C-alpha cells in the first residue's frame, strides 16, 4: 500500500442521567416537542445553570474506564456561536481544562489487539433540534441541556474497519458502565471523523477532512471507506487537498463538501462565570473507581480462565454486558461436567438464532433452564442434535418448555433397534449402489445410508444406533 490512512474519532455521547446537565428538566426521549423545558434550559434572562452531580459522576466513571487522568481542577467554558437550537447562543462546554485526559481504548482488529489513545473526555450540554418543514423551521428544545460527553481519540486508527472496531469497543464499555443508551439512531451517540492520508513512512500528517452526519457505525465505516478512495484518487492525480468538512450522504453513498476551513468559526471560548472552577475530590474519584464494574477485557480474561473458553469465544460473549451476564449464568447453572457443552450451544446454535433475528442473546428472552433442559435431552440421546436445534428455535419463538416441544413434535429419538430395522431394510433395498460401495470399503457410503434412514424417520432416528445397525446388517449379509 502506498498510503497510510490516519483516522481520529470524536464521539458525542448523551448521558442517561434523569435530569439535564444544568437544570432539573427530565431527559426522557420522545416526549412532545418543548415539553421537557424550563426557563433555565431555555436560556431565559436571569436564569443560571447549576451542574448536575450525577452527570459529573458518569463522566468520571467513563473516563476512569478509559484509564484517563481525572483533573483535580476543572471548569466549564462558554463556546459562543449563534444558532436557533442554542437558546443562550453559547454552549456550556469545557475548553482548556477538560475533566480528563490521556486515556486509551483497546480494540481487537484483524491484526490482533491494538491500543488507541484517548486525548480527552469532557462534559458539555446538548443543543436543541431543528425540524425543517416546508416554508418553516421549528425548534424542539427537549434535547437542549442534556449532558453530553465528548470523547476525542488520538489519530491512532489506520483503517475504516479499525474505526468500526473502536466504536464497537467504546459502545461495549459504555454499556457495561450503564452511562448512556448509546443509540446512534436516537442520537444518543454521535460520531464525527477526521481522516487524512499520507505516504507510508511520511512523518507529517496529510490534509484532513472532517466527516459528519453518519448515523450508524456502519455509516462511519462506509463514509471513511469512501473517503479513503476519494483522497487516494486526489493524491494520485496530484491534486491539492483542502481542509474541509464533508457530510455523509447515505442515499448517495458519498461524502459531500459542506464548508472549508476558511469558514471556520471563532468560538471565543472563555470560562463560564456562572459556574465556578471546581475541585474534583480525589476521594470521590477513588470511590467511583472502586465501584467500577468488571469491564469487557477483564471479563473476557476471566471467562477464558474460569470456563476454559477460547479467547475468540470469550470475546464474542463479553461484547455485550447483558449477553455476558446471560451466558455466565447459563454456564454456572449448567449441571453437566463439561461446561464446554453449554459454551458450544451459546456461541453456536443460540448465537445463530440471535443473529437470524437481528437481536442480542439476552434479547431472545430465552429461559436458561429450558436451554439447560434441552441440552440434557441431547446428552441423554433422547433427541438428536438436529432436532434439538429446531426445538431451540421454537423455545425462543413460543416460550413453551423443551419437554412439551419435544413431545408435541414427536421428536424423541428412536434408538430402539426393532423400530429402526424396517426402515433400514427399505433403505438397503433402495440403495444397492451404496451398499456395494460400502462393501467395497468406501466408508462414505455408510454415512449416505445413515442419512437416508434419518430422512425416512424424519430425523428422529438416532444416527449412532442406525450406523451400528447398518454395519451389522451388511456384515451379516
Amino acid at each position, binding site marked *: 500500500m502506498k498510503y497510510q490512512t490516519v483516522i481520529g474519532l470524536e464521539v458525542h455521547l448523551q448521558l442517561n442521567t434523569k435530569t439535564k446537565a444544568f437544570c432539573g428538566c427530565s431527559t426522557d426521549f420522545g416526549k412532545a416537542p418543548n415539553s421537557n423545558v424550563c*426557563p433555565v434550559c*431555555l*436560556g*431565559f*434572562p*436571569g*436564569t*443560571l*445553570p*447549576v*451542574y448536575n452531580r450525577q452527570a459529573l459522576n458518569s463522566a468520571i466513571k467513563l473516563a476512569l474506564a478509559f484509564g484517563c487522568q481525572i483533573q483535580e481542577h476543572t471548569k466549564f467554558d*462558554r463556546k*459562543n456561536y*449563534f444558532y*436557533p437550537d442554542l*437558546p*443562550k*447562543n*453559547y454552549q456550556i462546554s469545557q475548553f482548556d481544562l477538560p475533566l480528563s485526559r490521556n486515556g486509551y481504548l483497546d480494540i481487537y482488529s484483524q491484526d490482533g489487539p491494538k491500543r488507541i489513545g484517548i486525548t480527552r473526555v469532557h462534559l458539555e450540554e446538548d443543543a436543541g433540534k431543528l425540524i425543517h418543514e416546508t416554508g418553516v*423551521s421549528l*425548534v424542539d428544545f427537549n434535547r437542549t441541556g442534556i449532558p453530553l460527553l465528548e470523547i476525542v481519540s488520538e489519530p491512532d486508527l489506520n483503517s475504516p474497519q479499525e474505526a468500526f472496531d473502536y466504536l464497537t469497543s467504546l459502545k461495549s464499555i459504555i454499556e457495561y458502565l450503564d452511562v448512556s443508551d448509546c443509540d446512534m439512531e436516537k442520537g444518543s451517540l454521535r460520531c464525527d471523523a477526521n481522516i487524512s492520508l499520507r505516504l507510508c513512512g511520511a512523518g507529517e500528517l496529510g490534509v484532513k477532512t472532517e466527516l459528519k452526519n453518519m448515523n450508524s457505525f456502519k455509516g462511519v465505516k462506509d463514509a471513511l471507506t469512501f473517503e479513503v478512495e476519494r483522497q487516494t484518487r486526489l493524491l494520485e492525480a496530484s491534486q491539492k487537498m483542502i481542509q474541509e468538512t464533508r457530510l455523509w450522504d447515505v442515499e448517495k453513498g458519498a461524502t459531500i463538501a459542506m464548508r472549508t476551513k476558511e469558514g471556520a468559526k*471563532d468560538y*471565543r*471560548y*472563555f470560562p463560564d*462565570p*456562572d*459556574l*465556578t472552577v471546581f475541585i474534583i475530590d480525589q476521594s470521590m474519584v477513588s470511590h467511583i473507581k472502586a465501584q467500577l464494574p468488571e469491564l469487557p477485557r477483564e471479563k473476557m480474561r476471566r471467562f477464558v480462565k474460569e470456563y476454559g473458553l477460547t479467547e475468540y469465544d470469550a470475546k464474542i460473549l463479553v461484547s455485550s454486558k447483558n449477553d455476558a451476564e446471560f451466558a455466565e449464568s447459563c454456564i454456572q447453572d449448567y449441571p453437566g461436567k463439561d461446561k464446554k457443552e453449554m459454551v458450544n450451544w451459546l456461541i453456536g446454535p443460540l448465537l445463530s438464532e440471535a443473529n437470524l433475528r437481528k437481536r442480542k442473546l439476552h434479547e431472545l428472552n430465552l429461559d436458561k433452564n429450558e436451554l439447560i433442559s434441552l441440552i440434557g435431552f441431547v446428552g441423554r440421546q433422547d433427541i438428536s442434535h438436529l432436532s434439538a436445534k429446531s426445538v431451540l428455535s421454537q423455545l425462543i419463538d413460543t416460550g413453551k418448555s423443551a419437554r412439551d416441544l419435544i413431545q408435541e413434535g414427536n421428536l424423541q429419538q428412536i434408538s430402539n433397534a426393532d423400530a429402526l430395522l424396517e426402515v433400514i431394510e427399505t433403505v438397503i433395498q433402495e440403495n444397492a449402489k451404496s451398499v456395494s460401495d460400502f462393501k467395497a470399503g468406501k466408508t462414505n457410503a455408510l454415512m449416505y445410508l445413515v442419512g437416508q434412514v434419518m430422512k425416512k424417520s424424519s430425523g428422529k432416528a438416532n444416527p449412532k444406533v442406525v450406523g451400528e445397525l447398518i454395519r451389522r446388517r451388511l456384515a451379516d449379509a
Partner: protein
Amino acid sequence: MELNQLTAHELLEKLKARQTTPKAILDSLHARIQKVEPKVKAYVRLDEPSLSKGIKIRKEELGGLPITIKDNICTEGLPTECCSKILQGFRPPYDATVINKLKESGAAIFPLKANMDEFAFGSSCENSYFGPTHNPWNLDCVPGGSSGGSAAAVASDEAIWALGSDTGGSIRQPASFCGVVGLKPTYGRVSRFGLIAFASSLDQIGPITKDVRDAAILTGIISGYDPLDSTSVNQGVPDYTKSLSGDIKGLKIGIPKEYFVAGLDAEVKIIIEEAVNKLKNLGAVTNQVSLPHTEYAVPVYYIIATAEASSNLARFDGVQYGYRAQSDNLIQMYKLTRAQGFGREAKRRIRLGTFVLSHGYYDAYYLLALKVRTLIKQDFDKVFRDFDCIVAPTSPTSAFKIGERAQDPLKMYLSDIYTISVNLAGIPAISVPCGFTKKGLPVGLQIMARPFNEEMLFRAAHTFEQNTDWHKLKPRL
C-alpha cells in the same frame, strides 16, 4: 411628614403599632408619584394598564411594605425589560430569588419598575430606552447609574426603599449622586438568580435606602445561599441590625492614596476629608494606605465586564422572547433584531467584549485582565490584614449635567473609577451621604470591608450617619 417620606423601619414600627396600613402607604406613594414623577422620571412604563392592581396586605415581617425594583430584576408576570427595546414585552414566568425572599418576608413588590441604563450599561441613566431619569436635587443633572431610577425614586420619596444592582458602582454611584444609602454586598452574598446578567462575575443585587438601618434590614432579607446560583456562598446571614452599635472607637480605617489624585473634584475632596475627620473624631484611627494597582481597574473592568456581557447578551436574538425584527432570512433576522433592539452603548460593549475574546486577542486582553484582577484583589487582601475598613470617595465628582458626558464614553467610564475595584475584588462596599457641594448636590462616602463583613460597613456607616444630618435632608421638588 407624609408616610412616603419615612424610612422603612419607621413605617414598620407604625405598621406594627397599627398606626398605618399598607394601603395608606401606597396611597401616599401614588400621590407623590403623581406629583413629582413627571419631573424625575424614576419609573418606566407608567401607562402599563395592568399595573394598577392592588397590593396584598401581608402578615409577615414586612407587613405589606412596598419596595421598588430595578428593571433588570425578574418579577413574575411584571414587565422586566432592562430598559431595552430588545426585551420589549418580556414578562418573566418566574421571580428572582431576591423577589421570592422579599415576598416571603411580606414585602409588596411595587408594580412600577425603576429606570436604569440599558442592561446596566452606564453611569448616568441616560442609556435607557425610556429616556433619562432626572436627579431630584437638580433636575438638569443625572441621578447616576445604572440604578439611577431606584436611587432617584428613594431620594424623591417616590419609593420607601429599592433594589438596585451593582457591577462596577451601579448602586453606590447613584446613591452618592442622589444623597441616599447604597450597598454592594460581597460577591456571592446575594443570589443572582433572576438578575438579568450584565457581567456575571461582578454583578450583585443590593439595597438603596434612606438610611443605614434600612440597608441593614434589606440586606438581611435578600442575602443567603441559593441552590439556583452556583456562585452564591453557603454562609449564614447574621442579623445586620445588631451591628448598628453606634460605636467605632478604635476602628482602623485605611485611606487609599491612589483615590485622592488628579481627577478628584476639589470640592468633593474637601467634603470627603471632612468626613474622614468626623470618623476620627468618633474614635476611629485612620492611616494612609496604598492600593497600587488601582490605575488598572478601569481598563481591566472594561475588558472583563464587556467580555462577559457580549456572551450574556447573545441570547437576545429575537427567537424566543422580546423584540423581533421581521425577515425571511435567519441571519438577517438576527442582525436586524440586534441592530434595532440594542442601544448605542450596548452595541459598543458587545463589540468591545467580542473583540477581547477573539482568537489572537484573548491572551493579550482577557487573560491579562484576569491576572491583573487577581493583583487588584491582593491589594485589598493586604490592606485588610491591618485595617478594618477602607474609606474613599464613592465618585470623583457630584452629579453631572444630563448630556455632559454622553458623547464621551471614556469620560463616562471614569465616573466609576472609585467603585470598580470593589467589584473586581468581590468585596462589599457602602455609600453613605456625607455632604453637599455649594451647588447643593449630594456627595457620598464609600466604605469598603473584607468579604462577608457587611457588618463592619453597617457599623461604620451607621455611626457616621447618626452623627451627621445629611441623610435627613430632602430635595425640594
